[in-house]
């Protein structure tokens, strides 16, 4: 319930901001750039994965149970 309270504003913002604007071919060029992409890998990925050892609440779906 607490999680839902925190992220309700995010969901609301999505609904407010989701105006149906046209996406042109020129816009596609910028939308596919590194700064606008969420699925980059390799050298274009900016995050250091090792800090996940300290952040168990931010694990990915493929991470094993771990523990110790």
């Amino acid at each position: 319930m607490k999680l839902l309270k925190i992220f309700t504003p995010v969901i609301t913002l999505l609904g407010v901001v989701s105006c149906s604007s046209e996406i042109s071919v020129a816009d596609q060029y910028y939308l596919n750039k590194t700064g606008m992409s969420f699925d980059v890998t390799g050298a274009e990925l900016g995050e250091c994965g090792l800090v996940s050892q300290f952040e168990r609440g931010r694990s990915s779906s493929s991470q094993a149970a771990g523990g110790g």
Partner: protein
Amino acid sequence: MKCTTLAILGFYGSVMILSGQDFASSLASNEPSKGLSLGASSVDFEIDGLFSSDIKVIDSSISFEQAIGSLTITGSYGITEHEVDVIPPPGSFILPSSRNEDTYAYSLGVSKSIRSDLLLSITGSYTDGFSDHRSLWISEFYENSFGTGDPQPESFSINVGIDWDYDPGRSSLGFTFGYSDARIVAGVAIDPITFIDLVVGDNNLDTFSGSVRWETALNPRIKTQQTLQVSITETRQHRVQFRSDWAFRLRDDLYLRGQIGGAIENPVFESIYGGLTLAYEITPNWQFDVGYRYYEDTGEINTANFNTAAPGVVNTEISAGLLWKNQNTSIRASVALYDSDFDPVGSGPNQVFTNLFRDRDFVAARFAVSHQF
């Protein structure tokens, strides 16, 4: 590393032999042949480091992606070097010690376009060794305290994914389902009844997980991605995670990325995190970025035994990175200052891990190269 390079070259050579093509001519041309047609390919090399006064972790990996006909094959091989200095709590009869261990990680995956807008993928991974420095620290402490022997942690996981571009170029949905089987460092404690015998916790845990991801361009300058994930680990209740990512094109050469997320797991675990990154294109080939992240949780769910749960933590990170890229190659270097502050471990059995769960300052560094053929 040499063996991996040879393996990748061997893979290319084998495919050429099977397809009846000359190796050199196939690299020069992408024309389809009577056999398998080799499409685009890429190779990534990455090295990450995390350093403090008593913990050092260095992770090196190489990965590849190769299109063959309608399939795309992916694979990776990585080595993580863990070094920890194990310092027992004050007044302990156990002497300090140091330990180094390497962890090896392998993955292999395949994906196929079922339709022009539908992609199916499956990936298997295997890890041989300790999953993180904390497991290594606890294992060394148990060995020094109880003579528990040398554990052999390992894990296997498999993930299936479906990606649907229901509005090509603008919006997509993704679903993943995963299963992992992990053999961990079991928790150890003194039997509260006999005060002589040792009680060893479960060292084999299964985890099932599923996630849904929605990505869309709201307008020409704003993209967003929402991810909801549910995972269930043996002996624990289900964990729900939510993450919201945003990307803003402030100018044609200036981008702002933000993220906010959190997780909950009964009975007591909650986490929340967020971050901002500002990226500036100095030239079409050079990009500089700075970022800040914050993470906080209420303390870890105890998986194996009552004295292995980490207390609550607050982490902050400030980072800077430089990216160079042209049509086929990208090279990135970045450095970060990472501060980790734990809550006190309290006066219970967890006191033995006082020096494991103490405040630390880390330096994190990353270097990566990606090349497309």
